[in-house]
C-alpha cells in the first residue's frame, strides 16, 4: 500500500513534465487572469470590498449556531425538510433514504463539491440508481470516471479532441472539433434526463439565514432545470455556507464571479426557499436540505484557522497557485485541491496523512492575495506544518537541528565544519544525486549553491 505522500510525489513527477498539460493549464489560466483583472478594475475599490466580504463571513462563522438555527427554522416554516448530517456516512444514508422512500430510479445532479466530498455518486450507483451529472464539465469527467480536476472548472485538463473522442465512444456521437457542437451533443443527451428524472440533487453556494434560502451560482442553467422539473429536490450544503442576510448577496455574487471566473456576475444566481408553494405552478413537491458537518466543526474549534471556513469556493487561489499549475488538480488526491485544499484537508481528513500538502508550497502568498474573503491561506500552511511537527516530531529532523545548534554555538567547531565543507565540496559533485549523497532530497531536482569563496566572518575580519 502506498501512502498519500508517495502517490502525490509519483504523480507530481509525471504531471510536471507533461508539456501538453502545462500548455493547456497555462492557456486557460492566462485567459482567466486577463478577464479577472478587467473585472476587478470595474470595482470602485476591490480591496475594501474584500474586507467587507471578510467581515461579513467572520460574523456568519463566529455566530454560526444562531444563523444556522435561523436558516433551518425559516426553511422548515415553508415546508422544507431539513436534515443534519454529522459525517459523510450519515449524509449518504439520509439522501439514499429519501431516494428509496420516493421509489426513485433516475437522479439528475447539478454540480456539488459537497457531493464529491461524501462520494455520493458512488453510493447511489452502488445502490442501483442511475445518476447523471448535468453540469457540462462534470458530465465529461463523469463519463471518464474521473473526479473533477478543479473545483470550478472540472474538465480544464481536457482538450476538445479528448472530449470529442470521449463523446464518440460513450455517446456514439459524430466526430467534431467545434466546442459548440460538442456542447450541443451534451445538451441533447441531457435534456431527456431532466424531464424523466425522479430526483434532482444540487449543491449550494450560500445559505441565507434571514430568509431561509439557499443560493446557487451557475452559468449553464442546469441547476435551474434540476430544481424545476423533478418531483423531489435535495440540496446538500456544508454548514459553513451561511450568510446572515439576503442583501449580503449584493456583495458576494459579484465577488464570487469576479474572483472565480473573471465575470461581472455569473449567469444564474438562484435562491430557493422551499418546495412548490400553494399557488405556484411548478417546482418540486418535496424539498430536502441536508446540512453537512463532516469535521467542519473541528476546523471551527481552531480559532487560528477558523477563517478557512469563510471560503466561498471560488477557486481563485487554485488559479494563481504555482504548485497547482505545476502538479495539476488530480495530483492532490483530495476533493478540494490547491491552496485551500492544502489548508483544510488536514483538518477534514487527518493532519499526519495530509501534512505533505502544506509542505508543497512555495509560500509565495499569491493565494492569500487572490482570496476574495481574505483567508490567511499561506500562513495557515505554515501553521499546519508547525502543528504536524509538534504532533509527530521527526527523529532525524530533531537530530539535525540539535547537531546544528551544537555546532553553531561553538565557534571553533563551526570554523572546522566550514573548512571541512569547503574541502569536500568537489567530492559532493561526484556523488551528486546518488544514494551516497546526504542532500539527495534536495539535489535531485535542484543545484546545491556553491560555498562562497569568503565567509562573512572572514570578510569582516579583513575589513577591520
Amino acid at each position, binding site marked *: 500500500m502506498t501512502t498519500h505522500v508517495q502517490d502525490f510525489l509519483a504523480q507530481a513527477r509525471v504531471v510536471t513534465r507533461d508539456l501538453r498539460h502545462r500548455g493547456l493549464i497555462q492557456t*486557460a489560466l492566462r*485567459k*482567466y487572469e486577463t478577464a479577472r483583472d478587467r473585472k476587478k478594475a*470595474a*470595482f*470602485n*475599490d*476591490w480591496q475594501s*470590498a474584500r*474586507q*467587507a*466580504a*471578510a*467581515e461579513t*463571513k*467572520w460574523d456568519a462563522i*463566529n455566530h454560526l*449556531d444562531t444563523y*444556522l*438555527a435561523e436558516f*433551518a427554522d425559516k426553511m422548515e416554516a415553508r415546508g422544507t425538510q*431539513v*436534515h*443534519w448530517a*454529522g459525517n459523510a456516512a450519515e449524509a449518504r444514508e439520509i439522501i439514499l433514504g429519501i431516494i428509496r422512500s420516493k421509489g426513485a430510479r433516475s437522479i439528475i445532479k447539478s454540480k456539488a463539491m459537497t457531493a464529491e466530498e461524501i462520494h455520493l455518486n458512488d453510493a447511489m450507483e452502488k445502490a442501483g440508481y442511475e445518476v447523471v451529472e448535468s453540469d457540462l464539465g462534470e458530465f*465529461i469527467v463523469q463519463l471518464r470516471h474521473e473526479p473533477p480536476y478543479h473545483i470550478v*472548472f472540472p*474538465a480544464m485538463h481536457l482538450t476538445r479532441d479528448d*472530449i470529442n473522442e470521449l463523446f464518440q465512444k460513450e455517446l456514439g456521437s459524430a466526430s467534431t472539433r467545434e466546442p459548440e457542437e460538442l*456542447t450541443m451533443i451534451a*445538451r441533447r443527451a441531457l435534456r431527456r434526463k431532466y*424531464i424523466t428524472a425522479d430526483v434532482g440533487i444540487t449543491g449550494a453556494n450560500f445559505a441565507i439565514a434571514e430568509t431561509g434560502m439557499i443560493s446557487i451560482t451557475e452559468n*449553464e*442553467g*442546469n441547476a*435551474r432545470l434540476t430544481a*424545476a422539473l423533478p418531483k423531489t429536490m435535495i440540496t446538500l450544503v456544508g*454548514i459553513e455556507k451561511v450568510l446572515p*442576510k*439576503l*442583501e449580503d448577496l*449584493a*456583495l458576494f455574487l459579484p465577488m464570487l464571479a469576479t474572483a472565480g*471566473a473573471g465575470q*461581472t*456576475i455569473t449567469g*444564474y*444566481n*438562484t*435562491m430557493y426557499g422551499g418546495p412548490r408553494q400553494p399557488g*405556484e*405552478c411548478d*417546482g418540486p413537491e418535496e424539498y430536502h436540505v441536508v446540512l453537512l*458537518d463532516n469535521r467542519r*466543526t473541528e476546523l471551527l474549534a481552531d*480559532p487560528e484557522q477558523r477563517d478557512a471556513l*469563510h471560503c466561498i469556493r471560488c477557486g481563485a487561489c487554485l488559479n494563481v497557485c504555482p504548485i497547482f499549475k505545476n502538479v495539476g488538480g488530480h495530483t492532490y488526491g483530495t476533493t478540494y485541491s490547491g491552496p485551500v485544499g492544502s489548508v483544510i484537508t488536514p483538518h477534514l481528513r487527518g493532519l499526519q496523512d495530509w501534512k505533505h500538502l502544506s509542505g508543497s508550497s512555495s509560500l509565495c502568498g499569491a493565494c492569500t492575495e487572490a482570496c476574495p*474573503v*481574505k483567508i490567511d491561506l499561506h*500562513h495557515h500552511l505554515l501553521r499546519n506544518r508547525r502543528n504536524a511537527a509538534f504532533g509527530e516530531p521527526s527523529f532525524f529532523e530533531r537530530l539535525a537541528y540539535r547537531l546544528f545548534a551544537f555546532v553553531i554555538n561553538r565557534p571553533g567547531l563551526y570554523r572546522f565544519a566550514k573548512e571541512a565543507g569547503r574541502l569536500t565540496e568537489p567530492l559532493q559533485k561526484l556523488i551528486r544525486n546518488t544514494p551516497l549523497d546526504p542532500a539527495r532530497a534536495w539535489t535531485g531536482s535542484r543545484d546545491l549553491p556553491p560555498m562562497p569563496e569568503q565567509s562573512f566572518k572572514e570578510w569582516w575580519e579583513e575589513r577591520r
Partner: protein
Amino acid sequence: MTGREKILGRIREALTVPAPHPGAHDAHGGQAPHTSFKGRPVHVARGWMPPGGDTFEEQVVRFRAASTELKTDFRFVGSRDEAFTELARIRDTEGWKSVATHRAEQPSAAAASLGLPVIHTDEGYDVDALESCDVGISGCDVLVAQTGTVVVTNRSAGGRALSVLPPHHVVVATRDQLVRDLTAAFARVQETYGTGYPSMISFITGPSRTGDIERILVLGAHGPKKLTVLCW
C-alpha cells in the same frame, strides 16, 4: 439527541474560543486594527462595487453595456406598441411557431399579439409541450443596471421552468423596474414580497452559457440560447 442538537452543540463548544478579526494578518503578526464598519459591511461596500449609474439615462447605458457584454439582446423602446412590433420582427426572423407565457398583464398581452398558439404555464402545463415551444415570454421583478441582470421569481415569471426550458427567453419589462444596483434589487424584492417569498428568485444575466471546453464560450448549454429583454 437529534442531529440538529448535536451539530449545534459542537458549534457552540467550538465558538467558546474567540477568533481574531479578519484582516488581522495584514499587519504581519501584529495586532491589526479592526476596521469597524458602521452598519452592515454590505451597505458600506455598496460604494466600492462596480457602479450602476446615478440617473435613469446612465442606468440605461450601464444596463445595455453590461447585458450586451453577456449576449443579452436588450431593446429599449418608447412604448408598449413599439415593443410588440419588435417582438413580431423577432418572431418572423426566427420563425416561431408556438409560444409559452403566463397569466400576467404584460407577458400575456405580448404573447397574444403574436397570433400564435399559446401555452400558459400557470394554468398547468405538460413539460414536453413547454419544451417544444420556440419561446418563453415572461415578466420580471427588476432590471439591474450595475450588472445587466434580470430578476425573476416563479411568481413574476410563470413558474420555475418557463424562463429556462424553451430555447429563447423573452423578458418584458417597464422602465420603472430598472434599478441602480444589486443592493437596490434585493431591497425591491424584499419590498415586493415582504416575508411571503416565492420559492424561487433567480438573477439571470445573459443566456445560458458554458466555458467548460477549453474555456471557449458557448451559448445555450442547457437553458435558453437567447435572452431578449424588451423594455419600454
